[in-house]
């Protein structure tokens, strides 16, 4: 076969690929390593790679001194809350557009996508002022709602592309066999739609977790999630490299792990089904 590669070639490609992979993820690897150093080792010159006294002190410090748990909980509430709310609104819409498309369906979908194009900064002033007058600045409620609205077009689109892959004949067959609507939903549709809904949930939790425009501008202390907590290290505090690293590691670890499982969904969700 022409495309068979020799072991030698394969070894070379392996070396190059691993080298580049490590180079690209190096900032993350370095952050995790630094988080286990003392502040003095963290800025040692020349840099220390692995041979240092590994310590968990930074993690303890960040947790005890900075109320880390509250920021973490805000991130959890905002990302998961907004996604669940979004799913509740989007599932019926995606459902009906996928199973009963009309001549307007395409227009509705394209219009929903277009709302995603509006730059957040274009509506910063009225949203800020509106929330201020309602006393909702720095509240989780406001962020859950805004994050839901930001991601709603993506949620509808993703669900739509998943639902559309479910063949309509299956529903007809179930109906012919005498299934009523309730049984149809419980026994036929739910098992087939759960994977798509789960993927949508995963990607949108990731997007909401990392969102850093509204979270930075609309929170100060009470509702501030991890994005804002980390931003507070930008002042002279940031010179505490080991603590910054520990806080950063804790902020990105959960989403990094979720992200590894969502590679495929990422492509589908962020290209609106244009690349599969």
């Amino acid at each position, binding site marked *: 076969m022409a495309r068979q590669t020799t072991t030698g070639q394969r070894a070379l490609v392996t070396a190059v690929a691993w080298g580049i992979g490590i180079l690209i993820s190096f900032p993350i690897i370095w952050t995790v390593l630094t988080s286990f150093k003392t502040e003095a080792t963290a800025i040692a010159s020349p840099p220390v790679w692995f041979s240092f006294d590994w310590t968990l002190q930074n993690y303890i410090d960040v947790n005890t001194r900075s109320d880390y748990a509250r920021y973490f909980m805000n991130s959890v509430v905002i990302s998961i809350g907004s996604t669940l709310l979004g799913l509740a609104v989007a599932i019926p819409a995606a459902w009906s557009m996928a199973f009963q498309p009309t001549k307007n369906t395409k227009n509705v979908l394209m219009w929903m996508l277009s709302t995603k194009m509006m730059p957040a900064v274009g509506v910063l002033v*009225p949203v800020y002022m509106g929330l201020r007058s309602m006393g909702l600045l720095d509240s989780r409620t406001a962020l859950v709602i805004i994050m839901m609205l930001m991601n709603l077009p993506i949620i509808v689109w993703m669900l739509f592309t998943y639902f559309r892959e479910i063949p309509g004949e299956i529903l007809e067959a179930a109906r012919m066999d005498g299934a009523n609507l309730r049984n149809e939903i419980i026994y036929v549709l739910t098992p087939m739609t759960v994977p798509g809904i789960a993927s949508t949930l995963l990607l949108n939790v990731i997007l909401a977790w990392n969102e850093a*425009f509204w979270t930075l501008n609309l929170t100060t202390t009470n509702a501030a999630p991890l994005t804002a907590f980390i931003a507070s290290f930008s002042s002279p505090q940031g010179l505490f490299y080991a603590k910054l690293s520990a806080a950063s590691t804790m902020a990105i670890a959960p989403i990094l792990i979720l992200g590894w499982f969502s590679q495929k969904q990422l492509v589908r969700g962020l290209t609106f089904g244009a690349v599969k």
Partner: protein
Amino acid sequence: MATQRAHKAARLMISPSVILLLAWMIIPLGTTIYFSFLRYNILTPPASWTGFENYYYFLTDPAFIPALVNTLVLVLGVLAITTIGGILLALLLNMEFWGQGIVRILVISPFFVMPTVSALVWKNMFMNPVNGLFAHLFRAFGLQPVDFLSTLPLLSITIMVAWAWLPFATLILLTALQSLDSEQMEAAEMDGAGWLSRFIYLTLPHLTRSITVVVLIQTIFLLAVFAEIYVTTAGGPGYASTNIPFLIYNLSLKQFDAGMGAAGGVIAVIIANIVAFFLMRAVGKNLEL
């Protein structure tokens, strides 16, 4: 009629999404447009009507032209790095080697790092002129360390943002590459087509649509880069790393000039819509119903 009832149900199921998004579009955007015609300082209301004065002041602000240029440089710089790098990386990851799964995880990881973390890690642990790794590296070669964020602020931010978006481009182009017909490739190879001509005549045309999508989607997000600037340079020194979103933020929430901030917002919306128009056409073409 059954179909009529079905249509009614369908409309009922779609309407919550449509109403919410419509409200989210019209109310804030309408208010932005209204504010943009007011002389309105957040600290000293009431506001008064000024017509197009805010637009005039925004467009003639000494920061506007630098911010517009910086926005374009940032968008184009990141696009160039991520598209070319993404194609190369996708080609590499599509080859056969040991540990593909792990390398792919390593390559896509930066995309999942929140912008404030990546910006601060780059700023402190890599670009800091005293303790950063780049400074160590420069000194190891006997060179003078560079203070990246004060001497090359826009380039530094371009690097940070490109690092975050390279995985996205790679992942999408890799997905597209995997759907390339391998029989066609083999046929071309047997006919004696070299590596380069196979890339130019088969691979690249196959990737065109995905490249378009990558470019357009990234542009939407890159026009809105904010957090990286907010935590590293705060737009400075001077206006050297101020982009349009940061300028608007500065006018509205730092200088409390809601009217001028709103006028800037309207202009940002217009710029984004020009890009959006082309993205919608690219996506719409692929949507078969």
